C-alpha cells in the first residue's frame, strides 16, 4: 500500500466518497482522497502540466495575497524544485492577486487575458537564463506582471519605469544571495518586490505578508544556500 500524504499540508490522505473542492481549480466533485484539513486535488489538476496548472489556478482563485497563491502553486507536484515554471508563477500570482483586489473593490480587470499574456511573454525565458543572460526569469516575471497590468510598452513612461524597477530590484536582491541558483528564493523575492511595486506605484493594495521561514523546500534542495538565504532562518514553519 502506498502511503499518501497531502501535498498542501503534509498530513496523511484517506480515501473518501465525500464531495471535495479542488484547491487549485475550484472544481466541486466526488473526491477519492482527502486530507484531515479537507484539501482535495481533482484528477485533472493532478496530471496537469505546470503552466496549465498556473493558468487554471490563477484564473480561478479569489485570493488577494500573491504570496499565498505562489506558495499553493509551488506545492503542486508538477512544479519542480527548479524550473522555468517559476517565471510564469511569479507573474501570474501577482496578476491574480491584483485582479482579485480590483474586482473586490468593484473595478474591472480582465484577469484571464492578463494571465494568458504574461505566460506567453515569459515563454522566451529559458532554463538557467539567470546564469546565461544575467536576467533571472522570476525577476522578469515580476516585471512582466507590472507591464501587463499597466499595458506598458517601450514607449511608456512611468509604467515602463515601474516594470523595469520590478525587475532591477528583484535582480539586485537575487544577486546578493549568491549562487547556485534557487528558483524558490528567486521567486519569493520577485513576488515580494512585485507586490511592493503594485502597492507603491500602481495603487493596488496587495496584502503585506512573507513566505514561511524556514523555507518549506529546504529538504528537497541539496544545493540550498543555507545561511546565505533569508528564508533558511528558523522563525516558524508555515
Amino acid at each position, binding site marked *: 500500500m*502506498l502511503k*499518501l500524504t497531502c501535498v498542501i499540508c503534509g498530513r496523511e490522505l484517506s480515501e473518501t466518497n465525500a464531495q471535495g473542492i479542488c484547491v487549485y481549480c475550484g472544481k466541486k466533485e466526488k473526491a*477519492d482522497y482527502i486530507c484531515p484539513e479537507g484539501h482535495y*486535488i481533482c*484528477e485533472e489538476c493532478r*496530471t496537469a502540466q505546470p503552466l496549465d496548472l498556473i493558468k487554471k489556478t490563477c484564473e480561478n482563485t479569489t485570493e488577494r495575497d500573491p504570496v499565498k497563491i505562489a506558495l499553493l502553486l509551488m506545492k503542486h*507536484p508538477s512544479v*519542480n524544485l527548479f524550473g522555468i515554471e517559476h517565471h510564469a508563477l511569479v507573474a501570474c500570482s501577482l496578476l491574480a492577486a491584483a485582479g482579485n483586489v480590483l474586482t473586490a473593490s468593484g473595478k474591472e480587470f480582465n484577469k484571464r487575458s492578463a494571465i494568458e499574456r504574461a505566460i506567453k511573454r515569459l515563454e522566451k525565458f529559458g532554463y538557467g537564463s539567470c546564469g546565461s543572460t544575467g536576467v533571472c526569469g522570476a525577476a522578469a516575471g515580476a516585471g512582466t506582471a507590472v507591464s501587463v497590468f499597466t499595458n506598458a510598452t517601450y514607449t511608456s513612461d512611468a509604467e515602463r519605469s515601474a516594470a523595469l524597477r520590478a525587475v532591477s530590484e528583484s535582480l539586485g536582491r537575487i544577486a546578493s544571495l549568491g549562487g547556485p541558483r534557487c528558483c524558490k528564493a528567486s521567486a519569493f523575492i520577485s513576488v515580494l518586490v512585485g507586490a511592493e511595486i503594485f502597492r507603491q506605484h500602481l495603487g493596488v493594495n496587495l496584502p503585506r505578508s512573507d513566505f514561511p521561514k524556514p523555507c518549506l523546500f529546504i529538504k528537497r534542495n*541539496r544545493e540550498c544556500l543555507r545561511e546565505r538565504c533569508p528564508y533558511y532562518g528558523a522563525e516558524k514553519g508555515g
Partner: protein
Amino acid sequence: MRLLELNLEDDALALAVDETTLRSRYAGIAPDTLHVYRGHGSVFFSGELEDWANVSALKELGLKALRVNSVENKAVYSDPGTINFAITGPEELFKKGGPEYKPVLSEYQAIFEGVGEGLKELGLETRADPKGVYSETGKLSFGFPYWLTENFLLFRGCIFIDTKLEIASRVMITREKLTSVAQETGGGIEPETAKAAIMRGFERRLGVKLNPGSLLEKEKALMAKLHRRKYTTPEWNERGKEPHFSMLGEKLVEVYVANPPTSKCRELISLVREVVSRSQETKFLVWLRGAGEDQNPGEIYSPGMTYVSKAGMLPAVVVNGKVMFAREIPRKEDLEKAILSD
C-alpha cells in the same frame, strides 16, 4: 570501512567490483568500502576516447580501453606498477578536515590528501589538489569521481608507483607532465609496499579504520552482472551506453503516477503489480509525481523515469530504464511482453 583486496586478474572485473560497492552501499546492504588493486595494462577513460587517448598507440600496444563513469573526462594508463583504488561512501565521509569547505572539490581533495599521506610515508613529499597529486616534477595520481544522487561518491583513482611512464606518456593525451614514485625516489619501492602505505594514508586522512573483508553473495552476483552486461561490452566501452536495472541488479519495473494517484494511475498500478508478481527477480517501484527520489530508499530514478518526470508524462511504465508506455493504460498482453520477456 571495508577493505577489499581481491587480486583479480581482469581490470574490467575490478571496475565491476567498484560499481558493485557503490550500489550495495547505496542500497544499504554493505558498508563504506575501499577497493585497492594493481592494474593489468589497460587505459581507464571517461568521455570520448579519442579526445583523451592516442587510439592508434592503444591498438599498437594491444591495450584495452575501459570506460568508467565519471564527472571528469580523462584517460589514465594502468599497469602492474600502478595502484588503483575505488573508495565509496556518503559525502560526509569525505568532508573531514581541510581549512575551507568547498562542495564537491573538498571531497576530492581529502581523498588525494590521503594518497599524499601514504606517499609521504614512502619518503616522497607531494602536493594534493582536487584534481590529483603532484611532485615537484609532475603528476602521479589521477581521479575519476562519480556521484550517485549528488551525495554518494564512487571515487576511482590511479597512482603511478612504478608505472611504465614511456607507455603512459604515449597513450595519454594530457598537458601535464607525468611522473611516478619510482622516478621520484630512484626506485626500490615495491608496489605492494606502496599499497600498504597508501591504505594507511587513507586511514589517517579520512579518520577511518580499514577492515579486510570480502564481497557479499548478493554483491558477487551483481559484480558478475555488471562485468557481463556492462564492463566487457562494446555498447558501454565504445558507445557509453549502459544497461539499467535495480540498484542490486534485479529487473526494474517503475510506474510513474500522479500524486495522489488518479483512477487511471491506480488501475495501472494494480495491472503492473499483477504482471510483476509473475516475473522472477523483478523490483517494482511506484514513483509519485513530485515526491522526490527519497520515496524509494536505496533506488534512484532510471533514465526513463527522469525523462517522463521532466516531461510530465503520466501515468507511465518504465522497464529497465526504458519508457514502455506513457499516458495510457497498455493492453495486458503488451505489458506482459514488456515485463516478462528478457
